[in-house]
């Protein structure tokens, strides 16, 4: 076996030691790891930029929508207010008491031998009622009977359109001086009638409905 002499032993050892230098290896490992981290950071940064783009788009969309929605909200509030106000105003209009039909009914009940000299009517607030004082003169052989006839007729006519009708005499007195009725001197009486009623018709319809419902259930 031939003899081999390593004359570069020291240099080779130094070279090996240089290659196995922990600091150098550490720097290489750190650089490699750092490069990996940098790549991962780059990927994350790219995703963030994409998201930033989406955010900008969303912001642009919102900036375009915001004035419209503010206007829409304002309009909706306005519309709701209009609807509510109209509803309340319609309620006021529907709850009104119409005097003209009542005056017509009174005039239809007044016979030729009767004169209404005063009518004082008002709406009783909060009670949904109308109160009227009617003052007049009745002339007939039996003036009180004529006044009573007027009272009954008026009550009957009013009951057709209104509810809870009450027509009562507040005063009925014979007058000493007769009145001239178609050239004939006729005894007369002065009357004051108190009329109260509910402007809404009585619940006759409701009563019928209830009766029908009861009949059906049987």
């Amino acid at each position, binding site marked *: 076996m031939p003899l081999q002499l390593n004359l570069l032993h020291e240099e080779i050892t130094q070279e090996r030691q240089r290659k196995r230098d922990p600091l150098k290896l550490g720097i290489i490992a750190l650089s490699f790891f750092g490069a990996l*981290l940098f790549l991962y950071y780059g990927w994350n940064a790219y995703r963030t930029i994409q998201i930033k783009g989406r955010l900008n788009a969303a912001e642009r969309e919102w900036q375009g929508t915001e004035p419209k*929605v503010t206007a*829409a909200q304002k309009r909706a509030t306005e519309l709701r207010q209009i609807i509510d106000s109209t509803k309340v105003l319609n309620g006021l209009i529907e709850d009104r008491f119409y*005097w003209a039909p009542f005056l017509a009914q009174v*005039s239809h009940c007044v016979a030729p031998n009767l004169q209404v000299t005063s009518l004082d009517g008002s709406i009783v607030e909060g009670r949904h009622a109308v109160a009227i004082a009617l003052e007049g003169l009745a002339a007939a052989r039996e003036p009180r009977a004529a006044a009573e006839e007027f009272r009954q007729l008026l009550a009957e006519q009013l009951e057709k359109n209104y509810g809870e009708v009450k027509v009562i005499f507040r005063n009925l007195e014979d007058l000493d001086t007769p009145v001239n009725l178609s050239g004939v001197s006729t005894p007369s009486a002065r009357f004051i009638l108190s009329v109260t009623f509910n402007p809404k018709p009585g619940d006759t319809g409701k009563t019928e409905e209830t009766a029908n419902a009861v009949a059906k259930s049987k």
Partner: protein
Amino acid sequence: MKPTNLTKDQIQKIALSALGFVALIYCYFNFFLGPLNKSRASMMVSIANLQSKTASSKAEMKKTANLEIQAKEATGRYEALKATTADGAPIAWFPPKMRAFFADQGINKVTARLESSADFKQKELSDWIKDTWAIDLPQSEYGDLGRAIAELENSEPLLTIQHVVIHAVPDDPQYQQTSLIAQTALLKK
């Protein structure tokens, strides 16, 4: 396996490398990746908020459009009711209006004066005012009066007659003297 004998110098270098590694990790997560992730997360939240706001706004706009259709009748009605209030102070235009109205009905010398003015109790009518007027009709026939009141009630939906007093004129029983207390709902201007 043969154990590696490390020199003191090598151990120091390994420790230095480990320290460098820890420092790198710390800096990376605290100063680079952490803030980036935080900003991305906050942007995602902002996007979600904006998208939900935009979606709800679009729904609201649709609702308003539907409401507009539904409120068409009410809007028209409200405009018509608003139009019953003329420009200017009611005291300036209401009495002449009544005078002209009754004159058209054949009843002259009508006077109207403002008795009181108050706000409505209903909060929906905060833009409206309740005026009470005394209207005097010194001389009218019963038939004309009835027709005029019917016409007034039909043409003035926001006018309510609260009180009616009719007296026969003593010297001329054909005519009546009438006082009306009427309440009007007028738009505040």
